[in-house]
């Protein structure tokens, strides 16, 4: 896992390359002149075939999508493949985005997470077919340990994760960053599935409140 200590400080949203595109769109296409374009607005433009809006979305979320895929699947070229699929899907299906149901960032990161998790599960299933005898083995202890102590760039997320109980944190980490099903989480933590589901719920509620995410 590559760790770049400097990156945590960079502007999270707008690398310079996107500035001109956003500015141009604001001047030329925004229905409310002067109103800031958020990702949802950009997606509406993408749905109408606007390639500059697409570039602006990539500039805003490319690093999040790639980093998330990388965290889940590990392999850089696989992560790149997944990122490419996600953004092509965004391009093709932008018309399906429904702002009433959630924000654009959540929509795109959910697409990315699903693809990444499907990929690890698919790869894992292929490995399992080759090594039938160890299909039930959980991750080895070192791996579990690593997900708990893994360095997160985002200070707030790290702080909020630190505020969870150990079981809540491990349940969330193994599920979200490793793509484990809750049954696999239970197996690897030696807890029962009902407990794991409860800890996941308690953990997300606590994270949500800690991060100040609107319910």
């Amino acid at each position: 896992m590559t760790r770049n200590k400097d990156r945590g400080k960079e502007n999270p949203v707008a690398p310079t390359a996107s500035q001109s595109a956003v500015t141009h769109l604001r001047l030329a296409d925004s229905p409310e002149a002067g109103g800031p374009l958020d990702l949802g607005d950009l997606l509406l433009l993408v749905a109408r075939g606007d390639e500059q809006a697409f570039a602006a979305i990539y500039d805003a979320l490319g690093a999040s999508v790639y980093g998330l895929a990388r965290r889940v699947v590990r392999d850089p070229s696989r992560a790149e493949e997944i990122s490419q699929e996600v953004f092509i899907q965004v391009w093709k299906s932008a018309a399906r985005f429904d702002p009433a149901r959630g924000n654009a960032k959540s929509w795109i990161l959910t697409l990315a997470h699903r693809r990444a998790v499907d990929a690890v599960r698919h790869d894992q299933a292929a490995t399992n077919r080759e090594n039938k005898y160890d299909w039930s083995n959980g991750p080895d202890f070192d791996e579990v340990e690593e997900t708990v102590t893994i360095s997160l760039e985002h200070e707030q997320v790290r702080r909020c994760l630190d505020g969870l109980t150990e079981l809540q944190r491990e349940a969330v980490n193994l599920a979200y960053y490793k793509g484990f099903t809750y049954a696999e989480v239970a197996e690897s933590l030696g807890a029962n599935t009902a407990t794991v589901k409860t800890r996941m719920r308690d953990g997300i509620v606590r994270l949500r409140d800690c991060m100040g995410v609107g319910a």
Partner: protein
Amino acid sequence: MTTDLHSLMAPYALNALDSWERETFEAHLEQCDDCRAELAGFVATAARLGEAAKQAPPAELRDRLLAAAATTPQERPVVTALAQRRGLRRTLPRLAMAAAFLVGTVGVGGYVAERNQADNYRADSQTITSVLAAADAKTSIKTFGGGGKVQLISSASKNSAVIVASDLPTLKNSKVYQVWLVKDDSPTSQGTFASSGAMIMKGLVGVDHVAITVEPKGGSRQPTTAPISTIAV
């Protein structure tokens, strides 16, 4: 393994359900105001976890994507979106339909598959949705070593259960899987399926379990083999 469907909400938001339970939960989501009300906040929280993993992608990815976009056709705007989609949600059986929030994740291929699955369940949609939506709905899942799963969703208050089999190994000599409702050791046939299928079972009072046996094509009047699986109701 028996679960209360609301409890799948958190694993769903973390994408920690297998595809099978994901579909079940998405069907539940269509019917459950409580879960739907909470979904956006949970999903946004998960998205924050995703952003925290942010890492610079290879520079050439941007150029490749922009080039791809320039030559990739887009889906036409979905005219059935919103209002019509909402109407659809009320009337269609949704056992395999995409989640409210995640409707957009289903691509063209997925949409076709989803439609076909929905058609399979259409006839019995009312019962299926009422079982899935029941406050006391319980689900049990059995995974088979040779591949495939059987899921039983039951509701005592609706006095009904839905059994859904998916991708069980194909049997030789046109044999089929037959589902039985067993009451006082006396089995009543509920129907047969080849590899995947769904059926509704009404009248759960006094039923001990559901059994599945392997039978000749067309099914048998009484089980002729020992059950390959039994699921307590």
